[in-house]
């Protein structure tokens, strides 16, 4: 593993190695000294062209817990707003000697381009509507932690699949790890190529819920919507929102996930989001350990 750009690039063994490593690293978060000396003297650059709270903070905490030096870069207030290209920004980072570049970009494929321009490892922290592999890894980690396995798990991913990089990365990773994924969305919020994805598709949430072990609710990405994908927020919520009545249809061990940020009352009711069977808060904590594992496995060894 040199880069982490797509969840689809990971073999089953590589994905499990990341999850197992994260499981060991999770113990570090429980200690009074939450730091390991492993990446001392290495530099990790967080390159964020799009807004992010969770992912950016999570990557920063992960790198710092491994003693790496962290340089944060956000497009606002940088030379990008003066018109600097991605390539010139990359060359600047290269000159600073970045061992790893964590990139979030609005354009699908930006991390892939970046990987050709820098010597360090590139970690995709979300590119357009394409992929978000570390989110998929932390979701898989959270599922395994709660339910004890991934093989044969029935996972329903519900909502705005069309604009969701989380959905794509999850489908690719979970199918590699042997889980059965069903995407649930109105037809307008499914990408055209979805029949080629390794998963099932349904338009009917109520039919899928009783069989699901995991229900992952996605945010309706209003900021990416340039057309009318559904008649009204209220109608969307009635048909695809996870409220108390739908929650009651799940079997007793099933869990509810959400990658955040949530629109409470839209895709998920506050009551469900705060229930003990929701993993939403622990997903954030798991994000740090999974990203520590990814950073360690990518740049902890020899320089390639």
């Amino acid at each position, binding site marked *: 593993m040199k880069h982490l750009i797509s969840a689809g690039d990971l073999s089953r063994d590589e994905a499990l*190695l990341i999850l*197992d*490593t994260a499981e*060991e*690293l999770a*113990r570090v978060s429980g*200690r*009074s*000294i939450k*730091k*390991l*000396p*492993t990446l001392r003297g290495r530099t990790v650059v967080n390159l964020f062209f799009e807004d992010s709270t969770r992912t950016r903070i999570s990557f920063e905490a992960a790198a710092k817990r*491994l003693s790496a030096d962290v340089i944060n870069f956000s497009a606002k207030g940088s030379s990008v707003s003066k018109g600097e290209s991605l390539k010139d920004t990359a060359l600047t980072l290269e000159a600073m000697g970045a061992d790893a570049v964590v990139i979030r970009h609005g354009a699908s494929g930006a991390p892939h381009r970046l990987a050709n321009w820098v010597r360090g490892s590139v970690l995709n922290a979300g590119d357009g509507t394409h992929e978000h592999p570390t989110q998929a890894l932390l979701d898989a980690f959270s599922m395994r932690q709660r339910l004890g396995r991934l093989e044969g798990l029935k996972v329903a991913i519900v909502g705005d699949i069309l604009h969701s990089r989380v959905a794509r990365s999850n489908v690719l990773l979970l199918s590699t790890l042997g889980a059965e994924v069903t995407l649930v969305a109105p037809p307008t919020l499914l990408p055209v190529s979805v029949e080629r994805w390794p998963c099932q598709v349904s338009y009917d949430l109520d039919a899928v819920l009783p069989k699901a072990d995991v229900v992952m609710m996605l945010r309706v990405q209003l900021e990416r919507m340039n057309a009318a994908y559904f008649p009204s927020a209220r109608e969307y919520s009635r048909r695809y929102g996870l409220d108390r009545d739908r929650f009651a249809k799940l079997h007793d061990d099933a869990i509810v996930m959400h990658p955040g940020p949530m629109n409470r009352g839209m895709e998920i009711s506050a009551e469900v989001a705060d229930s003990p069977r929701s993993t939403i808060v622990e997903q954030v904590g798991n994000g740090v350990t999974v990203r520590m594992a990814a950073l*360690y*496995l*990518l740049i*902890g*060894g*020899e*320089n390639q």
Partner: protein
Amino acid sequence: MLEGPDIHRALTRIAHEILERTRGASDVVLLGIPTRGATLAHRLAERVAQFEGVKVPVGSIDITMYRDDLRLGPARPLGKTDVPAGGIDGKTVVLVDDVLFSGRTVRAALDALGDIGRPKAVQLATLVDRGHRELPIRADYVGKNLPTAKSEKVKVLLSEIDGRDAVELLKNEPEGAGK
């Protein structure tokens, strides 16, 4: 070099020595360095319990993230760290490893311990001491001193992991092949 009964006797002696040196092992925590050190720590704990009925907390401490040679190879998978519930603050920690060689593993283990707590004292037990130290480190309890050439390789086999107990000396391994 060593057969099953030799290993058995060596561990029995080390267990007695631990009891003697720590006056009954009342404040002792045994921490093995994975993989085989952890197995040995459990065997020592069994013996201590058998001889004097003292239940010694036993666990393991992985040192991978503290190694000084991480950059000399690809990233390694991590071993298990399992610190007993009582922690190590104020305790006498006995580190247990299978082979003592350069001393670098023990150096890393001391760093790792420092991040977990502040033991009263740290001691070191090893099944085989093969010499060639590169750091000022020595063992408090040694199963067997084994004179070796630096190019040789010492392999410890334990029945829990390898199906049988033995210590083998492999000759003329390439330089730097490790333990």
